[in-house]
């Protein structure tokens, strides 16, 4: 009987996963799908010039993976790009607007490097995931015979990100995607602490990654028909 109860409790706890709500908004310059010719690539970069936050590098990698998921879009990794273009895409020097990028591309050395890498689109990601609220407490004690924790804690995270697509050949903006993901996580501690964590950043990445893919030819409902 005891085994059955513990099994039921474990199953119940494992089946509990914290919920995340994701809202995605998009804006397109026009209805034409973005095209990538053979050998052309996309680079996804994070904005890092704000004082109080910076877009997480692992979030940028996650979006790159989502875009590359079906091998139709080739993505140049952020680190590789910033090393190849050093020091022109560091937080201090990265262009914040298309006018500044156009001026940068007037420099033959930089333009040549872009050409060598087959870069057609640059996607800037700006935002971060923050803990917006937290409550409760968990206490743990260790004694020679053992130890344990007791309590309940909850915290809420919000991830807000915006992606802006720049066409590097036309030097114009192709579209924007904005995503907001919210989720509450819990930790219940009765001897053992059991965290039930909301994957806010992962959900935001999935939302923005999937939406960005729809901008490219071959990923839109109209392309399939």
């Amino acid at each position: 009987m005891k085994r059955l109860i513990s099994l039921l409790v474990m199953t119940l706890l494992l089946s509990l996963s914290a919920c995340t709500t994701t809202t995605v908004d998009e804006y397109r310059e026009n209805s034409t799908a973005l095209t990538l010719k053979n050998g052309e690539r996309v680079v996804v970069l994070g904005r890092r010039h704000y004082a109080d936050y910076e877009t997480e590098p692992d979030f940028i990698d996650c979006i790159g993976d989502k875009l590359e998921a079906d091998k139709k879009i080739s993505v140049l990794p952020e680190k590789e790009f910033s090393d190849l273009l050093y020091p022109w895409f560091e937080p201090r020097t990265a262009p914040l607007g298309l006018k500044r990028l156009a001026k940068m591309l007037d420099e033959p050395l930089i333009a040549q490097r872009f050409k060598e890498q087959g870069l057609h689109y640059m996607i800037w990601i700006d935002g971060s995931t923050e803990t917006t609220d937290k409550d409760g407490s968990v206490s743990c004690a260790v004694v020679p015979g053992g130890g344990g924790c007791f309590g309940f804690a909850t915290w809420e995270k919000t991830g807000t990100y915006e992606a802006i697509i720049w066409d590097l050949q036309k030097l114009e903006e192709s579209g924007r995607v904005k995503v907001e993901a919210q989720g509450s996580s819990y930790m219940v501690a009765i001897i053992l602490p059991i965290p039930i964590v909301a994957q806010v950043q992962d959900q935001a990445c999935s939302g923005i990654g999937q939406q960005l893919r729809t901008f490219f030819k071959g990923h839109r409902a109209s392309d399939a028909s």
Partner: protein
Amino acid sequence: MYVMFAIRVPTKLTRNPRGVIALSLTVASLLLSSCATRVEVEGSFPAALTHKLPLRSVVVFDEAFANHRFENTQGQEVSIDVGEIQVELFTGLATSLFQHSVTATSMPTLPKADLILKPTVEDVQISMPNESQLKVFEVWIKYNLQVFDATGEPVADWIMTAYGKTPTRFLKSNTAALQQASMVAMRDAGAHFITRFARVPEIQQWLHHRSTSTASTTDSTLP
């Protein structure tokens, strides 16, 4: 949300004086090791994408610069060893920016060079999330880049600041975060150096003077 921990010590141990000493030492060393953060900044830098200036340079790294260590004893004990990595950074930057560059450990006399660069660290500051209430680790480095001509005459004292930050992450240690923020600060110093060197007024003037005097020398040698 609060997470609290408590340790209960067996009374058998506290009754024995040797046990008390051993326990005190263990607790003290545990506390010290948990508070002190020691970072030896390691990494590498890419070659800078820039046009080379038609100059030969000597970059002087004195002992204080090559072994520079930032020590913070107020509040949380933090030590960041930046000496070796900044020598690597400035060696690479000079190679990228100048047509020919060598390094030295002391000021050369009559070098076969057009200019001598001597970087020194003026100040290093750090900020941890528990101090700033921001979710980022920050590192500031203030360099004084002294520039001399071939005769050893000073050309410029260029105060160059570098800043780097990295976001906090679950289960990321202070050491790893400060290492990353220091590397970002170093890359920032490099970006500042490459993009601004020829625009520093005194250096710009020196370069202009040099190009006009070279041109006039060339003109005077024409038949």
